[in-house]
């Protein structure tokens, strides 16, 4: 029944810790960042199609800053600089905020393209029915654009899951940091440790876990890309 019973004794507590603590951290970061990226990104991307130079310029600046910075630098700025202005985040939340800034920039860029790809007739028909700019976009244009946003959103999910490992570098317990904790515990002296090195097995196993999550999703993104466009 239990596959773990066939493996060496040290495996079970490691898997249990990573599946509970580690996976929880990764899931929280990924869920929060994808949700925030989608909402902020679609909003900014839609606003970018407005005919206002200052607004477009401001959103363009937002996109270029958060896409241009290495993610770890954004994480450090949020985790180490903002506390000087009395804005404090936990390590998990700091990573989620950084990933949301980066992700929303990606989504905004994709949304702008998707919204602009909706034919002019759709705007005209909605206007003829008495919709203003807001109603036209909320009820007619953006819902159609969302279909074309599906493939980039799946890719975003993959990227966010993979990049959530950076949270471990500021001490957030996600999958990679949980793995590191276990590698170091086992390498330590008994009773907590076993004075054994199992870095290859643990990091290699983690790589397989990430592959098993990411590969189907990248295939799905490629499939949706083909079907929807």
């Amino acid at each position: 029944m239990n596959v773990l019973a066939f493996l060496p004794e040290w495996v079970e507590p490691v898997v249990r810790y990573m599946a509970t603590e580690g996976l929880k951290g990764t899931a929280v970061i990924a869920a929060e960042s994808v949700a925030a990226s989608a909402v902020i990104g679609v909003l900014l991307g839609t606003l970018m199609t407005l005919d206002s130079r200052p607004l477009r310029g401001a959103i363009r600046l937002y996109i270029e800053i958060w896409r241009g910075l290495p993610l770890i630098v954004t994480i450090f700025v949020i985790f180490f600089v903002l506390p000087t202005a009395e804005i404090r985040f936990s390590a998990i939340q700091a990573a989620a905020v950084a990933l949301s800034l980066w992700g929303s920039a990606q989504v905004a860029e994709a949304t702008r393209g998707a919204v602009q790809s909706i034919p002019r007739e759709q705007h005209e028909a909605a206007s003829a029915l008495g919709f203003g700019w807001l109603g036209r976009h909320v009820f007619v244009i953006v819902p159609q654009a969302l279909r074309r946003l599906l493939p980039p959103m799946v890719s975003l999910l993959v990227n966010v899951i993979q990049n959530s490992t950076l949270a471990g570098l500021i001490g957030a317990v996600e999958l990679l940091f949980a793995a590191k904790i276990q590698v170091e515990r086992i390498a330590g002296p008994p009773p907590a440790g076993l004075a054994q090195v199992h870095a290859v097995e643990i990091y290699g196993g983690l790589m397989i876990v990430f592959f098993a999550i990411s590969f189907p999703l990248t295939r799905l993104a490629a499939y949706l890309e083909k079907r929807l466009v």
Partner: protein
Amino acid sequence: MTLLASIDWQFLWEHRSEFVDGLENTLKVSAIGIAGAFGIGLVLGAARAHRIPVVSQLAAIYVELVRNTPLLVQVFLLFFGLPQAGIRLDSFGAAWIAVTIWGGAFNTENFRAGFEAVPARYREGAYALGFDPLRAFVNVTLPIGGRIALPSSINTYVSILKNTAILGPAISFPELTYQAYSLDSTYFKAVEIYVLLAVVYLVIVWTLSLAIRLLESRLALPGQT
């Protein structure tokens, strides 16, 4: 404005050498990674596009494995895992190998797509003129496909540079981000240090993006915009 006024410029000036050292290491590892990624991408991309048996399949596995796992896990496996197998890398070795493997996988895809976009009749024309497959590749597929692959491959090179930023915090390789981090842990000047760090990265990345756009328009295939 109050933020600007409160910045301790003196501090940054006194510690400029730490930043310069970090920048040097960042650029050094990026340069190796970019050169390596170019070589790997060229060879494996050609093997993929021409469906060379065995090499093509192995390259596909390599690409999928790298693209579907976090770079940080790859770095950890190289730096903390390999010693278990008796292979000990210093942080510089693990750093350049990691970004080369990572960039090579993405670049293989870039070049594959570029080479496959070259119409088959161009190659057939070369064969008809008596070119052997290697000459046809070097003289026809490479110049055309390489230029098609240029924008996406340069994006990969910029990503390589940005990705070197995780190497310091992960394996203590003294690149720019690591230097910033260790300065902050000694002097607690987070605002000065990280704002400067962000500005330096933005200047590099934005300059590169601008250069890319200029290069793209100069190297664009005639008849394309």
